[in-house]
């Protein structure tokens, strides 16, 4: 097989047994990554299985591009029933970068499907087609980095490992799966799921290869991608391009290394060569961009961190504005990594605790936390420790912010709503660009609201739509989130026309500027989800793909054919961009079928009431009836009924007859 390694490894931890199945059972139909994971999940995970039950599958899956030179192909997806989704645990997914994915492919496997529960802590060792379950008693309790070092002593430095920290071991819904020096699968609580299976790590080492069908074509495509995203560095500075005016093009506007930290104390130290602090380039496998950087210094915990971890403790900047981004800000994120805690949930927990404290809903005594010192060192270290060890109030927080607040109820719950905007049964994910320029006082943009209502986690994790807005801001000379929304419209007209078929897709506001225009939102959302699911299936990184905004060209029009070109060259399975969207459409419906089986209907595709009463920076509002109308049209476009459930006819058209029958048997759709 070209592209795919050809084998999927199934691991039954209860029995301690392995089974190998051919990847060709799933591909090319489901492509790889999230597509294959969805199909496996559909077939294997009972609707009533809990996230921490042995029946749940923890699916580590790569795509056809992993292990090749395709740009940003260092990634893999983790999927399964998510512990974080609230109030009902449900199917979700979370991606992770680094260097683990290619190593798994070179070891001979496209995916590892883990189920059951080991009777004691174990890890899985996979090397060149050989598989083994090993005792992990001595690793249990160790942080992810010490764990990796101990594993390297046994298996050699070339082995790559995904591991969990204390949070995962304690079945925290904030538990993450982490690899290398900070790459993590954060959302979904899959670290907790891994912990529930008594699985500490999966270690891989491969000396095999992945065959590319058309190497010359792939190299040409990659060279083109590289020219769009990267120009060699200026001598002596990896963060500055040698070509004057060239933008490294992270989400249209940001530069290389810019997803680590912000100006302040630490950056000042790093830019002084005599200080002993350094900021160095770092990239995932085959990535031409290198969005983050590595930071080290004599009295800080060194490592690599992306925006999520490195900017986790914004409160420290607010508390000590004179320092700006400080050593403490940096170390807080690293501390979360050492415990294996989802830093993005801390982005929710900290402002929620702040609000609860200010409103008098929670006290220092209730929580055992120095709530009057939020932003300080003691607060964050106690908070993270309590969460990781499930100690006192931390036991509640380890259930995730939404679950914790709901349990407290009353005002505490209300104060959470603003941060967790999707209502219904499938929320649990903190706000992530529901508004351009942030929540709650950014700009209302209709497609963002629709996408948020429909997704099964924080929707903008795939930054493709919002990247155009950031890119336009950057082209106008603003930092990505500092432009007025009206200013962006003329800049994004050509890019929206290219991406969605009409300049009208860029007209978000009524001519008088007082209201929102929703007419293009359903079509935009459809293409958004298709591209997102394809990106997660090939697998490439959402920092680069889909490439919808080119900061280095005059009209800023990107190129959304890159992914299908890479796929075709690697696998030899020819697929045009248009054909790829048909697959994306099918995968969206398959995922929706899974959700429907787990109880999701249009009543769950809703936002918190306050999203409709809140006014944005220009005084505009999302309106409930507009969103409902947009949902009607979106469901129609996808061939779903007005309850938001795929119809039997549509499922059959998509060659998912077995899915239709199963939903009929279950009474989800009528026969």
């Amino acid at each position: 097989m070209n592209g795919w390694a050809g084998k999927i490894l199934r691991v039954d931890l209860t029995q301690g047994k392995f089974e190998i199945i051919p990847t060709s059972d799933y591909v090319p139909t489901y492509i790889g990554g999230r597509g294959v994971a969805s199909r496996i999940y559909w077939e294997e995970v009972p609707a009533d299985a809990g996230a921490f039950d042995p029946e749940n599958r923890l699916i580590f899956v790569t795509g056809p591009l992993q292990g090749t030179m395709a740009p940003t192909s260092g990634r893999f997806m983790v999927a399964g029933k998510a512990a974080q989704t609230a109030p009902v645990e449900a199917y979700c997914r979370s991606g992770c970068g680094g260097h683990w994915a290619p190593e798994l492919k070179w070891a001979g496997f496209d995916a590892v499907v883990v189920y059951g529960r080991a009777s004691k802590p174990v890890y899985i060792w996979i090397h060149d087609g050989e598989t083994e379950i090993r005792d992990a008693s001595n690793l249990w309790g160790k942080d992810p980095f010490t764990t990796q070092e101990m594993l390297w002593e046994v298996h050699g430095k070339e082995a790559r490992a995904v591991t969990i920290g204390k949070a995962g071991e304690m079945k925290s819904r904030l538990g993450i799966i982490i690899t290398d020096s900070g790459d993590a699968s954060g959302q979904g609580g899959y670290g907790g799921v891994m912990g529930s299976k008594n699985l500490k790590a999966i270690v891989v080492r491969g000396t095999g290869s992945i065959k590319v069908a058309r190497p010359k074509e792939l190299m040409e495509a990659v060279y083109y991608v590289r020219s769009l995203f990267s120009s060699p560095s200026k001598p002596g500075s990896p963060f500055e391009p040698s070509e004057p005016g060239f933008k490294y093009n992270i989400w249209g506007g940001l530069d290389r290394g810019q997803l680590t930290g912000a100006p302040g104390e630490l950056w000042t130290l790093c830019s002084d060569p005599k200080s002993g602090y350094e900021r160095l380039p770092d990239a995932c496998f085959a990535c031409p961009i290198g969005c983050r950087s590595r930071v080290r210094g004599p009295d800080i915990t060194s490592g690599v961190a992306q925006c999520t971890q490195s900017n986790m403790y914004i409160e420290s900047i607010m508390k000590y504005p004179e320092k700006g981004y400080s050593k403490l800000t940096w170390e807080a994120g690293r501390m979360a990594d050492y415990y294996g805690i989802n830093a993005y949930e801390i982005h929710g927990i900290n402002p929620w605790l702040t609000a609860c404290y200010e409103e008098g809903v929670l006290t220092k005594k209730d929580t055992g936390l120095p709530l009057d010192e939020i932003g300080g060192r003691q607060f964050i270290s106690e908070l993270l420790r309590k969460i990781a060890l499930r100690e006192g109030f931390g036991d509640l927080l380890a259930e995730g912010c939404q679950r914790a607040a709901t349990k407290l109820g009353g005002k505490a719950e209300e104060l959470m709503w603003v941060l967790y905007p999707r209502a219904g049964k499938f929320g649990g994910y903190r706000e992530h660009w529901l508004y351009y320029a942030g929540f709650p006082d950014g700009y209302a943009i209709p497609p963002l609201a629709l996408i948020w209502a429909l997704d099964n986690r924080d929707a903008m994790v795939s930054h493709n739509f919002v990247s155009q807005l950031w890119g336009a801001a950057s082209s106008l000379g603003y930092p990505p989130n500092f432009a007025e929304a009206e200013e962006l419209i003329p800049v994004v007209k050509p890019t929206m026309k290219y991406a969605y078929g009409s300049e009208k897709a860029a007209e978000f506001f009524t001519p008088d500027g007082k209201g929102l225009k929703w007419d293009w939102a359903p079509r935009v959302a459809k293409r958004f989800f298709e591209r997102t699911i394809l990106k997660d299936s090939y697998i490439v990184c959402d920092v680069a793909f889909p490439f919808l905004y080119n900061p280095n060209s005059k009209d800023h029009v990107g190129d959304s054919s890159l992914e299908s070109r890479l796929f075709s060259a690697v696998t030899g399975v020819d697929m045009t961009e248009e054909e790829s969207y048909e697959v994306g459409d099918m995968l969206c419906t398959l995922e929706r079928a899974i959700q429907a089986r787990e109880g999701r209907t249009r009543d769950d595709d809703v936002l918190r009431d306050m999203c409709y009463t809140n006014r944005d920076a220009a005084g505009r509002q999302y309106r409930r009836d507009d969103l409902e109308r947009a949902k009607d049209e979106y469901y129609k476009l996808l061939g779903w009924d007005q309850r938001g459930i795929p119809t039997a006819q549509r499922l059959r058209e998509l060659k998912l007859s077995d899915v239709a029958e199963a939903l009929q048997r279950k009474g989800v759709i009528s026969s």
Partner: protein
Amino acid sequence: MANRKNRLLEKSDSQDQSAREIPPVSRRDFLKAGVAGLAFLAGGVKVRDMFDMVALADERQLPLAKGVVLVDKRLCSGCRTCEAVCSTYNSQGRTSSALARVILEKDYLRGNYEANTCFQCVEPLCLAACPVEAIVVDTKSGTNARIIDPQICIGAEDCIEACGSVFTPPRPRFDVERGVAIKCHLCFGDPQCVKFCPYGALQFKWSDDGVRTGYPIVKEG
């Protein structure tokens, strides 16, 4: 080692035409050329980062390689694009770190990245060690790179061992699937790792007079 040295001499005499065109170089010649070479290398690359200078032998029979891929460590992000493109290009689309002729060693936790390239040595021990003379100087493309002829290679891996006696990791590698050794041949004058390195950390240094790199000038600890 003595045998290898002898074989090096024999080989250069019998096999390589251009070898005869270059007269033996005296220590004085080296000093002149060496200084020029250093100035040439100093452009953009911190020589001391890469080199541990030792004395050059008085005599040299093989023509110097005209090009070499060098690394500016400070620019490297450890993305391993170099490895991926090298194996894709040179192993007919079989992509793997294990098949790359440039070997990136990455300390994932501490962040020290070393892209280890072949130095195209002044006195290539790999060439000397090959029992069947499968390693030759690439005069055809004009790079004078030390290359392995896969038709001749019998997979003895002596080249890997010989290189490993001075360099860690050894630059030639073993292609298990095909049963032959592989090594950097500068992509016949257009090294793809250099072309695809997104950071410009890899640089192709060229001199018509030949580059004085690798054994016995450079040794790795």
